[in-house]
C-alpha cells in the first residue's frame, strides 16, 4: 500500500506538467489565450460576415462555448492516454493509479483558469457583473467532476483497448456540433432539447450563458443545474468503479 502525502504528490505532478509545458515558451501562459482568441476571431468572422447571425456581441457568445469545450476536449484526450503515457510511473511506483488521470485533468485546469479570466474580462466589458456570478465556481466544478469521471472510464479502457483514444477523439469532433457553441440553444427544436440538457457539456454552456449574458440563475425553467450535477456525479462514480475493477491488471497490460 502506498501511504504518502497525496496533496504534495498532486501538487508536484501538476507543477511538473506546467513547468515542462512552459519552460521553453517565450510567451508562457499567454499561449493558453492564443487558441481561444484565434477560434473566436475566425468564428466571429464567419458568423458576422458570412452566415449573418442575429446574436449580439457574437465574440463573447462564442467564447462562452469555446472555453468549456476546449478544456473538455484537451483534458479528456490527455487523460485518456495518461495511464499508458505514464507507463514508467505505473510500472515502477505503487502510487494509487487514480492519481495519474486525475492529475492530468487538474493540470489542464491551470489553462482553464487563464481562459476563464479572459472570458470574464470580456463579459465585464460588454455586459457588466451580476449577482448570479456566485454560481460560476459551482458550475465549473461540476464540469471538472464530469471530466474526471470520463477520464477514469476511458483511461482504464485505453489500457486494454488501445484505440479507445481514437474513439474519444472522434466523439470530441461530433460534440463540437452537438453542443451549442456556435448557435443558440433556442434554435434547437423542442423535441431534441432534453438530449442537450443531459449532456453535461451542453448544460454547462447553457448555464454559463444564462449567468454571464442574461444575468439569470443557471437552472432556467428545466433544472439544468440538477441535471448537470446528476450526470456529472453518476459518470464520476461509474468511472471510479470501472477504474477500481481494472487497475489491478494495469501492470501486466502496459
Amino acid at each position: 500500500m502506498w501511504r504518502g502525502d497525496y496533496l504534495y504528490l498532486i501538487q508536484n505532478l501538476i507543477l511538473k506538467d506546467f513547468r515542462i509545458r512552459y519552460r521553453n515558451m517565450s510567451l508562457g501562459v499567454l499561449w493558453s489565450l492564443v487558441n481561444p482568441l484565434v477560434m473566436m476571431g475566425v468564428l466571429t468572422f464567419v458568423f458576422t460576415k458570412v452566415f449573418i447571425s442575429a446574436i449580439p456581441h457574437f465574440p463573447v457568445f462564442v467564447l462562452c462555448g469555446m472555453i468549456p469545450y476546449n478544456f473538455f476536449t484537451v483534458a479528456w484526450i490527455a487523460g485518456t492516454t495518461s495511464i499508458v503515457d505514464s507507463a514508467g510511473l505505473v510500472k515502477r511506483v505503487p502510487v494509487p493509479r487514480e492519481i495519474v488521470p486525475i492529475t492530468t485533468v487538474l493540470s489542464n485546469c491551470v489553462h482553464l483558469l487563464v481562459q476563464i479570466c479572459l472570458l470574464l474580462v470580456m463579459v465585464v466589458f460588454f455586459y457588466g457583473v451580476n449577482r448570479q456570478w456566485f454560481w460560476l465556481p459551482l458550475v465549473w466544478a461540476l464540469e471538472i467532476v464530469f471530466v474526471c469521471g470520463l477520464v477514469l472510464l476511458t483511461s482504464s479502457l485505453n489500457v486494454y483497448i488501445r484505440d479507445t483514444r481514437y474513439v474519444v477523439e472522434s466523439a470530441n469532433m461530433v460534440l463540437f456540433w452537438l453542443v451549442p457553441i456556435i448557435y443558440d440553444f433556442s434554435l434547437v427544436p423542442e423535441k431534441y432539447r432534453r438530449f442537450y440538457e443531459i449532456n453535461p457539456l451542453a448544460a454547462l454552456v447553457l448555464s454559463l450563458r444564462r449567468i454571464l449574458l442574461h444575468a439569470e440563475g443557471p437552472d432556467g425553467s428545466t433544472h439544468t443545474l440538477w441535471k448537470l450535477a446528476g450526470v456529472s456525479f453518476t459518470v464520476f462514480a461509474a468511472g471510479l468503479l470501472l477504474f477500481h475493477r481494472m487497475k489491478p491488471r494495469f501492470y501486466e497490460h502496459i
Partner: protein
Amino acid sequence: MSISDERPAILFQGVWKSFIRHTGQMLIRDRIRQLLRPKAHETFHALREISFSINRGESVAVIGPNGAGKSTLLNLTTNLCLPDQGSVEVNGRIAALLELGAGFHPDLTGAENVRVNAALLGLSRRHVREKFHEIVAFSELERFIDEPLRTYSTGMMMRLAFSVAVSADPDILIIDEVLGVGDLSFQAKCLERIMQFRHSGKTMLCVSHSNDTLMGLCDRAMWLDRGRMMEYGPIARVVEAYKNAVGRQTMCSAG
C-alpha cells in the same frame, strides 16, 4: 503504528504469478477476435509456488539467472502487481531502490526532480523540506542542482536518484541491481549507507549479479530458477550451490 516483532517483515505463501504472452497490439479487432474465437492464452509462469518469510532485521539476497523471476518477486513485494494465487504480506514501510529516478524529467532542474521523485516515493512535504539539503549534500551535486537534468551525466542522475531514495527512512529496503551507481567513491558511499541501514536493524531484500557484493550485505539468500525456489538458506551455502549449478551447466554446454 508500532509493528510487533512477532510478525515477519515479508511473508509469501504459495505465490504463483504468470503473465499472458501478448502477440501484438491490443486493438479493438484483437478483442473482437478474442470474443468470437476464444483461444487459450499462452501464459508464462514467472513464479511458481513461492513461499518464504523474512523476519525483521534480516537481510536476504535473491540470486538466479536472468528471467528467473527475481524482479517479479520484488514487484510483488512492493505491491506493483498482485499474485495469481497465494498471498503476499508486508509489514512496515517499504522503500525500493528499484524506483530510482521514477518520474525524472530532463527539462526540470535537479531540485525540481528531487521533489517530484520524493513525492512519488511517498515522502511528505515536511520531510522533503527538512531533508532537502541533506539529499543534495549526499549526492554531492550542489553546484548543478538548479541546472536542467538533461545536462547531467547518467552517473550524476543516478546519484541524485539514490540520494532521494535513501533519505526515506524505510523499515524495509529493496535494492535491485543499483549498486553500480556513480563512480567508485560514490559506490563506496552508497554501500556504507546501506550497511548503516542493516546495522540499525532494518530488513533488506537485494538483487544483484555480483555475488561478492551480496555476500558482504546479506546473511541469507534465495536462489530462483525459472520461477521456482531452488534453495533458501545461509548465503554462503546458497551461493555455492548456485555456482556449482552454473558450473555444471557451462561444462555440459561446452562438452
